């Protein structure tokens, strides 16, 4: 009772944001956010610690006929925690990030922004807590809507507005898939709820309905080829927002997929394979496109797609494991993906915040104009480095742990696997390892070009370190990242617990136990690594202190007049790669050739940008086509009365005709 009252209080208090005087809006929102975070975290903490399956909190008295009942199970609890962490950190970061806008935008804009932020968070919480279909769809849409208003914070720019709207439309389209899937469930079972899924799945074929749900959720999660909104929306949004969106909002799609899988009964193998294949494609293509990007945030957006691919691969393996009832595979696959959900929410939000800081310092997102930022903004650079190491899954950071679990799922299931099974698994091994390699390529490029070397433009040259208010939240995130990386068993044990409880895997204690042991070993290794490294560095310092150390220009192979423009650029770094990747990626070049009769060629410009083929083929072309048709249809309002009468005439004739033809 108290719980629901408190939650409702937060829901309604959020409206006050509009009426709080300008300079207290932020604090008010922060307080509200904190209260909510504490409340919900306590709920999920209680559940995870306790032994009961679910915690039910009806928002209104049932007599009111309302279906808003918060049902927290272990899965939900996990996601609640993930959401809370990132949202809170993101809002702490927002203070500094929004500071420059305080002058240019009126108070209402900020009210809208904070309000939407609160509601994005609340709706995400409710998405994971609500089981009833109708209520779920409502909060699901509220989530899309609020994030839309967050994305268009800078709405004065038409391009941003355009992006935001196309984002909204795609979210809405995705919602329709889920809606229809629910309605089909209701048609057979009479109930429109996640709880009714099991009943439906026992009776009917599972795959078609699952695919409906999957499509709907995959649009949110950003699986290729449904990712098209993602690389547009993330760069457009303010950085704390893109951090939250990419960190946790897309995970709601993952949540939905898991929620559906929980109650699936048959068709598991084929489902698993489908998910696996789509995920690997997303992973590889996502990172391949990421490498080609010059816009830092767009690069991060594509790498989000890659990570969603990894998460999906974990899920796919888990489902396959359920199908082949090999508990090891199921457990490790699901745990790996869940853990990666957490990890990605941490380091991706970190990276986006970081990109925001860079943007604030340099007023550009274009890698080619950065360079040498580490000199002026060292802590930002270090944070970005940490983030990229983590996202590449390198030890001793957290990314490694989740990828390790997924790998192990594959390897464990290999021994004594059937032919097809082993082929699938090995295929995914190849995919994962390729993703790993590409990720390293991508982030060495990003970090190296942005932060290292010599400044490539004045913007970069005059960049200044951002305020502590913006770096401290990032340090918090890094601390969490390292915690998971170095003390993985602490985190993985509960995750195992969640997975075994949620997916009713008859807990192979040997597996989970053994793996906590392995992870302990990894932690030790991490410790060793840190110690060795520290030792080396200390000795080095000591050593150099006794030798003469002098500085000079970079070795130019005899050429002494080197300038910053001669450095390897982001484009040239990916040049060879681009050659290999041509078939899948497409880099458009805009240049005009020098004519023959041109004796003194004038100044020329050369622009190259990589376009998303899938987006072109799947969204742009069909939509233009359809819109064209619709516009051509809309020519009836001629202003001539006789035509207006004619329509009625024709309509009647049409009906006559159809009824004669027995069509209606």
């Amino acid at each position, binding site marked *: 009772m108290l719980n629901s009252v408190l939650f409702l209080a937060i829901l309604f208090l959020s409206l006050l944001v509009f009426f709080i005087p300008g300079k207290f809006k932020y604090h008010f929102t922060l307080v509200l956010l904190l209260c909510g975070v504490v409340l919900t975290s306590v709920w999920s903490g209680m559940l995870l610690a306790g032994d009961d399956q679910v915690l039910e909190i009806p928002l*209104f008295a049932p007599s*009111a*006929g*309302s279906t*808003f009942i918060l049902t927290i199970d272990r899965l939900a609890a996990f996601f609640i925690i993930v959401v809370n962490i990132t949202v809170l950190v993101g809002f702490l970061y927002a203070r500094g990030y929004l500071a420059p806008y305080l002058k240019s935008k*009126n108070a*209402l*804009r900020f009210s809208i922004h904070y309000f939407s932020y609160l509601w994005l968070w609340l709706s995400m919480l409710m998405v994971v807590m609500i089981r009833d279909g*109708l209520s779920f*769809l*409502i*909060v699901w*849409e*509220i989530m899309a*809507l609020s994030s839309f208003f967050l994305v*268009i914070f800078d*709405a*004065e*720019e*038409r391009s941003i*507005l*355009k992006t*935001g*709207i*196309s984002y*909204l*439309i795609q979210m*809405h*389209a995705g919602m*329709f898939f889920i*809606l*229809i899937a629910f*309605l*089909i469930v*209701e*048609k057979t079972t009479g109930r429109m709820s996640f709880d009714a899924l099991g009943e439906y799945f026992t009776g009917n074929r599972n795959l078609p309905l699952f695919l409906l749900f999957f499509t709907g959720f995959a649009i949110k999660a950003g699986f290729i080829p449904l990712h098209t909104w993602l690389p547009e929306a993330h760069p457009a949004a303010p950085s704390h927002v893109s951090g939250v969106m990419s960190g946790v909002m897309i995970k709601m799609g993952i949540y939905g997929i898991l929620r559906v899988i929980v109650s699936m009964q048959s068709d598991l193998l084929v489902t698993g394979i489908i998910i696996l294949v789509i995920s690997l494609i997303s992973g590889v293509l996502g990172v391949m496109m990421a490498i080609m990007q010059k816009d830092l945030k767009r690069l991060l957006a594509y790498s989000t797609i890659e990570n969603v691919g990894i998460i999906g691969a974990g899920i796919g393996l888990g489902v396959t494991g359920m199908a082949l009832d090999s508990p090891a595979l199921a457990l490790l696959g699901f745990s790996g993906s869940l853990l990666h959900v957490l990890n990605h929410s941490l380091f991706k939000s970190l990276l986006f915040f970081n990109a925001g800081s860079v943007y604030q310092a340099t007023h550009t997102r274009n890698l080619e104009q950065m360079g040498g930022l580490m000199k002026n903004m060292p802590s930002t650079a270090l944070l970005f480095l940490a983030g990229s190491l983590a996202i590449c899954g390198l030890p001793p950071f957290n990314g490694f742990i989740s990828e390790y679990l997924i790998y192990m799922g594959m390897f464990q299931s290999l021994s004594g696997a059937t032919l097809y099974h082993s082929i699938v698994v090995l295929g995914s091994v190849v995919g994962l390892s390729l993703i790993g390699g590409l990720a390293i390529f991508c982030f060495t490029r990003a970090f190296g070009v942005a932060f290292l070397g010599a400044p490539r433009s004045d913007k970069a040259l005059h960049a200044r370190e951002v305020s502590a208010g913006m770096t401290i939240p990032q340090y918090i995130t890094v601390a969490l990242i390292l915690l998971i990386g170095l003390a993985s068993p602490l985190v993985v044990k509960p995750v195992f617990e969640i997975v075994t409880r949620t997916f009713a895997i008859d807990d192979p204690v040997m597996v989970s136990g053994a793996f906590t042991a392995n992870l302990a070993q990894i932690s030790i290794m991490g410790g060793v690594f840190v110690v060795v490294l520290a030792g080396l560095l200390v000795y080095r310092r000591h050593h150099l202190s006794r030798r003469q150390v002098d500085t000079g220009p970079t070795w130019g192979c005899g050429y002494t007049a080197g300038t910053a423009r001669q450095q390897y650029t982001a484009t040239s770094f990916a040049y060879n790669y681009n050659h290999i990747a041509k078939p899948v990626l497409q880099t458009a070049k805009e240049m005009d050739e020098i004519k023959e009769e041109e004796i003194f060629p004038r100044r020329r410009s050369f622009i190259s940008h990589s376009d998303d083929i899938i987006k072109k083929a799947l969204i742009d072309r069909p939509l233009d086509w*359809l*819109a064209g048709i*619709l*516009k*051509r*249809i*809309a020519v*009836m*309002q001629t202003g001539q*009365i006789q035509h*207006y*009468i004619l*329509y*009625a005439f*024709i*309509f*009647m004739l*049409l*009906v006559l005709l*159809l*009824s004669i033809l027995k*069509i*209606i």
Partner: protein
Amino acid sequence: MAILLFFVISVLLSISAVLFRNRTVTRIITLAFALVLILFTVYSWTRLNQTDLTYFTYDSTGVLLLTVLAILTLPTVYHGFIYTSGDTDKRYNIYHAGLIALMTFMAGAYLANTMTVLWIFVEATTLAVAVLIYHDRTEMSLEATWKYVFICSTGIALAYLGILFLGFIYGRGDAPNLSFSSFSLIISNASPLYLKISFIFVLVGFSTKMGLFPMHTVTIDAHSVAPPPVSALISTTLMNVGFLAIFRVYKLFASTSVLPFMNHVLMLAGLLSLLISAGYMLKAKHLKRMLAYSSLENMGLVAIALGAGGAGYYAALLLIVMHSFAKSSLFYQMGQLSRVLHTFKLDDCGRYMKLYPAGAMVLLTGMICILAIPPSGLFISELMIFRGLVANGQWFVLIASVILLSFVIYAMSTRIMHITFSDPRDESKVQQPGAVNPVETVSQFMLLAIVILLCFYQPPFLVEMINQGIAIIPR
């Protein structure tokens, strides 16, 4: 008897509004009428399902729509006062006389329990609204008025034919004056062919009023020139009149074998309406016309809802009610917008968020509501429509409408967002923005609040009323 009293009083008020050449008097008269109407509505709630004056029945659907009208009365009057404040006394009085007449006739149309009486009232509303559309006395308004009256009269003639056929189906000459309830007793042994023809004529005829394809064209024009408060009425309560006429006939025939036929025709009309509205929204250049097309789209949805059957019936009535609130508040907002920006041309509008924040909020919220994006109540009815379609396996209609709706959402949100946030496309035409008091938006916010509230919680009495209205329709 009460209804007779109501009519007499209203007509007297309306006449006196013309006679007295004094603004304040007119104002008082109008407010008095609003009071009378609201009192009458309350009274009608007390006498549910009872017949009055033999030709009128306080049946649930009628009373529901009457209530909607009553709720919209005060805002309409309020915004009317503001809008007409600049006019000469003559026009001022004529405007309000027309307004009173229009509302009275609409009330009559809602409660009429006989086809012919309903028809007469519909005719009357056309005349009343013509006066209001012509209020601005411009070339445009002249044209719009002429077209409106002409097409409506044609439509009404057609509808009358439909009623005649209703008469033919059964020898009794007084068939059409039988109340719907008693008619439903003899409907069963009617020849389907006649029923079909009659339905077609009624549908096409009243589609002028309901703003549904094929005769939607003139309402669009009327919207674009009428004073904003009047447009609000045209696209909500007046459309409800048309809907009610069609709905009553539909309900009457539903028990016979022509039900599938009617469903198909309705779905056809609905889909075509969606198609056209989507197409026009993609090329809309005029804000009020765009809103008019959005009404067309919603009426199309209503038609589809009726056609879908099952949960669709409930959805249709719910949609009608909530659309009335959302759309009217948007149209009221148009009044302030025109005073701030001095234009409805989309290219010249912009920066509304800066110039008039409160209005911009109305615009945004209203947009969300009208586009049936949660937390808008329209989403519920949309979902129920889909439920009905899925239940009857109408996959084609389902997919088509989903696609078209997405286009509508795209077109409308793009335009409204640009008005709200970005700068006008050609700064040259921009005039000095006027100042408007934010308080004027309060009523609009209230209406929108109702819509949003209905998304989370539909009060039992509403559900009860709607269910009574659709009780006799076979599922």
